[in-house]
């Protein structure tokens, strides 16, 4: 289902901005600015190259397409990474690279290593029902206009990928300062969907502006954070685009796959036990399906619910909620939750608070006691 990831198009990249010209050089050394690559650009390219694993530098530079194949031939990719990066910078100087090109290289790196960032999902809403003919050119123009009118100095770079995803890299500046290329925001948007994946920069203050630009450019009315975060961008996509295995009961039920269960060593297991095991397996499959779960690393619950104890125990009878913060963490949270009941660590079915994560598309919850008829149930706002 994720085949598109490997076959990304040699994307068309657009970078804009007057601010990206080597302004300081112009000021201080008029006449030289046009010939010498901005120092900060050189340093930025060097640092970006250093981030790439050595055996991938060449392919990534090829994807970048800024240096010719003949130029790439001259680089010794077996030497120290530091030296490779120097060589790359020198070639870039020959081609007089500017920040536009450097930013594209950064996008390529982040596209291949999205897991180095934390991604947050935002949801947009619209009121009308009119059919939207999303036009990428128009979208880009609106984003640029919005951000630039507010900040003047901002580097905005777009790159499109095969799955109708457009990647946007934004380096923020202010009307008086140049954009900081090291504190960038990333946005991944799939046209005509209400979801935006944002990896915000540390400069959080620009987030509202970014959100506003996205809403306007994509013809929506408002936007909100979904409380769904992960390092794995693809899993977030799987969750909100409902691409994860949901185990639908279709017309012809698939014959249950023979599962590679190790032969039961304990022959004394009584039928009842076996039945219970089968029940757990079945319930588990109904909830989680057979397919792989989307990858999340954590889930967090803020509980403000009543403490209910066994009346026999005679402990804590308070009217106030018992305040807890529960965090689950795992390299692959949903897979480990899935294996809890079969391992005897949890009831089957597992609590809906946990199994609703992909359904509700969130992994941050605040749980309060549900008011009204069902004292045993909870609600999350």
């Amino acid at each position, binding site marked *: 289902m994720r085949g598109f990831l490997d076959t990304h198009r040699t994307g068309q990249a657009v970078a804009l901005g007057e601010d990206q010209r080597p302004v300081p050089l112009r000021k201080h050394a008029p006449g030289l600015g046009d010939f010498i690559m901005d120092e900060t650009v050189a340093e930025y390219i060097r640092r970006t190259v250093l981030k790439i694993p050595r055996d991938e530098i060449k392919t990534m530079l090829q994807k970048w397409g800024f240096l010719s194949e003949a130029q790439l031939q001259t680089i010794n990719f077996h030497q120290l990474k530091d030296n490779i990066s120097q060589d790359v910078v020198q070639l870039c100087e020959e081609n007089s690279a500017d920040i536009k090109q450097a930013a594209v290289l950064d996008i390529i790196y982040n596209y291949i290593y999205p897991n180095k960032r934390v991604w947050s999902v935002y949801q947009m809403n619209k009121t009308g029902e009119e*059919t939207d003919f999303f*036009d990428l050119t128009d979208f880009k123009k609106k984003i640029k206009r919005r951000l630039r009118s507010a900040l003047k100095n901002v580097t905005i770079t777009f790159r499109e990928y095969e799955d109708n995803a457009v990647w946007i890299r934004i380096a923020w500046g202010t009307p008086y300062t140049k954009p900081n290329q090291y504190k960038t925001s990333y946005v991944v948007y799939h046209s005509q969907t209400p979801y935006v994946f944002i990896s915000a920069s540390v400069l959080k203050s620009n987030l509202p502006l970014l959100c506003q630009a996205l809403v306007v450019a994509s013809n929506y009315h408002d936007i909100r954070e979904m409380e769904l975060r992960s390092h794995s961008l693809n899993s977030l996509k799987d969750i909100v685009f409902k691409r994860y295995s949901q185990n639908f009961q279709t017309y012809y039920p698939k014959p249950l796959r023979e599962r590679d269960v190790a032969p039961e060593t304990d022959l004394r297991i009584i039928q009842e036990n076996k039945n219970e095991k089968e029940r757990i397996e079945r319930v588990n499959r109904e909830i989680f399906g057979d397919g792989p779960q989307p990858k999340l690393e954590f889930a967090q619950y803020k509980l403000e619910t009543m403490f209910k104890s066994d009346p026999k125990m005679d402990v804590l009878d308070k009217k106030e909620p018992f305040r807890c913060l529960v965090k689950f963490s795992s390299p692959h949270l949903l897979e480990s939750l899935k294996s809890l009941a079969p391992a005897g660590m949890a009831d089957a079915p597992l609590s809906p608070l946990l199994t609703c994560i992909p359904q509700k598309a969130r992994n941050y919850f605040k749980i309060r006691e549900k008011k009204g008829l069902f004292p045993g149930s909870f609600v999350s706002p």
Partner: protein
Amino acid sequence: MEEGKAYSPDGVFAHLEMLEARAHEAAVKQEETEQQEEKLARLKARAQELRFQRDELRAKVELQEKGQLGKGGVVSDPAQPSARAVLEWKIKSVEATLQVFYLTGISGKLTKRGVCFCISTAYEGTYLDSYCLDLLIKPEVQIHRHSVPVFIPLEQIAKKYLQTDIRRFLSVLSDHLNAYAGRRYQADQLQEHFSDQIEGTLQRNSLCNLLVFSYNVSSKSKTFPFKVRLLYGDLCCSLPTEVVVSCAPDAPVSLAETAAAHSDLFRRVALHKAFRSFSSADESVDGAP
């Protein structure tokens, strides 16, 4: 194309081999077609049968309901077992509906709390993706979960039909999905088979209801780019409602005619088929091998 050439002995064998392969292919295809026709006839008969059954059941249900209202009028049985019977009939009727749907690319299965439908899409005989919908029946019909792409206006369709007419809901949704699958398939085909003629990238959006690209048209051994903008105003349709084909102002006048002809073709024929016809036309014009 090899027809006109002189054959070396090796070439003859190769040619024979090729002919043999072709004959085999044709035979296989014919067999397939026959099988499909047979299957179609069978399914049609089955559909007929089910429709009949459905009508019969519907009549029974109506009768039953009247009987309930009239309390002991028509129905001789006491009220209790008949309520159960009604339920059974209803279930059977739903099951029959489900089977009928299956023939149209929509299949369904009763679940504990409702029905799970699966809509399979196809474009010009090629099976494409399937999408599922898990519906809850009580207390009102609602979508429990689904795998319909997020850009398909599912919510709007549901708002219109889900409570009042599930069949309509499913058929409209199926139309949307089939049209989307068809549009996407055409764009994919174009990219896959005609990338050498396309200049730059083919720009599309998720719904594939706007395609923008340029392609080269050669005239008198010069190539001119045609800019195309295809707008699919009807989301239930896989052909564009608005086609703009433009060429550079310096292009020869004859090209303007070609552009008009192409534009007309795009409106009527699947994108990749239109391109296929251009290339065969090119071949005939230029005499290319």
